[in-house]
């Protein structure tokens, strides 16, 4: 039977790798290359490496949550396992003369992440949803607890450390300097991100979406939902292992912390905040989270409280995360009506920022009041020094918060109206 396509044009153009697909990647690569020229300090490089590792990890997590509909509370296991194996291999390079250039190490870590995902996925991917989530939690806790007991492998409480510079030189690099490690990390970031992006464009990647949406229907189309999830899980385990190896290379130490629930939880948080529905979501999430952690952590002790509030608010009001909020503006943009929103946005900006800052001030003052040393009420906030135990500062913060919130609530209907208008196609178009 010959099929004469009625629309060969669309079919044909789809096949070529279009400029619009390649351009963002090329741009990202260029950006990553010049980044260390702008930020040269060692701490900046550390933060950027941390970011890159978190991006790989978050992307691999989103293969489960976003692409496959699997909510995992134990994804740190695969990153950690990959990292621990990578570290042992690193030590074999140092002490037993194993020949392995450092840049190839992530492949090894990835393989072990994949192996563990294969084993654990064999029983955990039978079901999605709640059951999968609970099993991932149990397995995560099991491995984290084992890491204390199996000292030979996990190194107990001190963890396992190694030295990345002991391997053979790789094109003249021995990876003693931070910037060489940076380039190693971002090359792997690009490789991993491109591969994961391509995976989402393969038949199995598309079917993973289908199983996420409607597992029953997928079964009646010839696909075993369990196998589809299992494959996604294994591939995701590989990239988690790659992230773990990059961690090993960067920090030269792995501990129980790399496996535990807190790490698994924060990758869920990062991915969700970034936006699970979009490929770019976890990338945004990882960047924003790392920045928040390092910047906010400098200024306040209760930054994780803010993060918790932000997360819960995001689940309730913006389930699409940052990427979702950005994507919401695609339609107004394509309708050419984005300008309708700028006015109201500008109008709400000052009261909104004021209300956030003043509410944070209320929390900070309360916190200082409760936990400051007895007799020492002096605290400074936003450059002002005052006595946190008095009522003036707290009262002022509450009043400002109330006024600014009131203003925000007055402007909200206007934004909503502008939003409706901006999203209205206008039937004449």
């Amino acid at each position, binding site marked *: 039977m010959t099929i004469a396509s009625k629309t060969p044009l669309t079919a044909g153009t789809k096949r070529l790798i279009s400029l619009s697909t390649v351009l963002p990647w090329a741009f990202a690569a260029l950006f990553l290359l010049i980044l260390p020229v702008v930020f040269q300090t060692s701490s900046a490089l550390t933060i950027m490496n941390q970011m890159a590792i978190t991006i790989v990890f978050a992307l691999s997590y989103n293969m489960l949550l976003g692409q496959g509909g699997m909510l995992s509370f134990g994804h740190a296991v695969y990153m950690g396992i990959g990292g621990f194996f990578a570290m042992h291999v690193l030590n074999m390079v140092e002490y037993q003369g194993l020949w392995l250039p450092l840049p190839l190490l992530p492949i090894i870590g990835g393989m072990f992440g994949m192996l563990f995902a294969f084993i654990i996925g064999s029983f955990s991917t039978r079901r999605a949803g709640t*059951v999968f989530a609970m099993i991932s939690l149990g397995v995560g806790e099991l491995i984290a607890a084992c890491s204390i*007991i*199996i000292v030979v492998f996990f190194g107990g409480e001190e963890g396992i450390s190694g030295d990345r510079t002991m391997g053979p030189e790789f094109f003249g690099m021995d990876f003693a300097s931070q910037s060489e490690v940076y380039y190693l990390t971002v090359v792997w970031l690009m490789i991993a991100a491109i591969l994961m992006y391509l995976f989402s464009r393969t038949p199995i990647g598309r079917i993973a979406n289908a199983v996420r949406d409607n597992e029953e229907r997928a079964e009646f189309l010839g696909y075993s939902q369990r196998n589809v999830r299992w494959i996604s899980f294994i591939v995701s385990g590989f990239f988690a292992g790659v992230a773990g190896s990059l961690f090993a290379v960067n920090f030269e130490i792995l501990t129980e912390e790399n496996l535990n629930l807190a790490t698994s939880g924060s990758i869920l948080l990062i991915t969700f905040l970034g936006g699970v529905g979009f490929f770019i979501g976890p990338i945004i999430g990882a960047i924003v989270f790392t920045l928040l952690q390092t910047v906010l952590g400098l200024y306040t002790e209760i930054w994780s409280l803010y*993060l918790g509030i932000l997360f819960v608010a995001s689940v309730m009001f913006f389930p699409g995360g940052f990427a979702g909020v950005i994507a919401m503006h695609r339609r107004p943009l394509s309708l050419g009506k984005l300008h309708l929103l700028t006015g109201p946005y500008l109008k709400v900006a000052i009261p909104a920022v004021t209300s956030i800052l003043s509410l944070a001030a209320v929390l900070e003052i309360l916190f200082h009041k409760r936990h400051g040393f007895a007799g020492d009420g002096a605290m400074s906030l936003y450059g002002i020094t005052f006595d946190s135990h008095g009522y003036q500062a707290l009262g002022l913060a509450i009043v400002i918060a109330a006024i600014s919130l009131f203003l925000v609530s007055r402007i909200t209907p206007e934004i909503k109206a502008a939003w409706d208008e901006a999203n209205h196609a206008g039937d004449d178009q």
Partner: protein
Amino acid sequence: MALFLVNILDGLVTGLLLFMLCSGLTLIFSMMGVLNFAHASFYMLGAYFAYQISTVTGFWMGLLVAPVIVGVIGALIERYGLRRVHKYGHVPELIFTFGLALLIEEVVQFFWGKSQMAYSEPLALDFAAFSIAGNSFPAYKVFMIFMAMGLFLVLLYILTKTRIGMTIQAALSYPETVQNLGHNVPLVFMCVFGVGTAMAGLAGVIAGPVLGTFPGMALQLGSIVFVTIVIGGLGSLWGALVASLIIGWLQTFAAAYNVAMEDILTAIGFTKPENIWDHPLQDLWTLTLPQIGPILPYLLMVFVLVLRPQGLMGKRET
């Protein structure tokens, strides 16, 4: 033998405490389809509230009031938080309760700090109820057993003898019937969530003095609670009871009997290598039962899942 009896009782205390959490979690899960990740956080809130109240009025007022406050907070969270997320499906709901667990831990640290609270059992119960061959058994643990049993009996009565209980039971077996309830479903959901969290709060009130009242207490128990209901079978109340007791005893006995792997290995004819700390099998040789105690529940879970995916007494594999 005497030690054995003491351990039976200790394990019973742990098991029943677990069950107080698991029963509420199971109720909520069966009715609403939501696995409340923050369940242990409500348990923690119970302990903290009871502590705060007890500093003013003593233990007993805390016992009465704290669970009610926790229940009200739970109901409000259901009404204004969970219900909003409900329309997105179960996975977002689970993520929401996960976020809630993070947030509650932060809020607790915000108010009470990171250190352990001086929350202790009331003086009236601070004596040894009886002793078995020199091992004294505190009266407070007897009290805990009675409280948990009492709660269990009340629950059993409500489930089997009252109209609302019948409805809940129907929902336990046939989740889809909840939609056909003639009742005001959102209100029922809110109440179930409130009652479930209040039960967790009560567990926190009575466990706080024994297990310690500190910000990590939710995390410490939380994972075990989930593992327990997976082992028992999601949505099965009896399964939750059986699994709770099994895990309670498993942990108690593992902690009590110092069986060393070395003894077993030498008994079956292996010789301990010299210089054990450099040997690749050092962990195998130096392992003791108390060391692996904490991982036993998780191991059990993996075994149960591989052999019987629906859990010990679960009917549905969902």
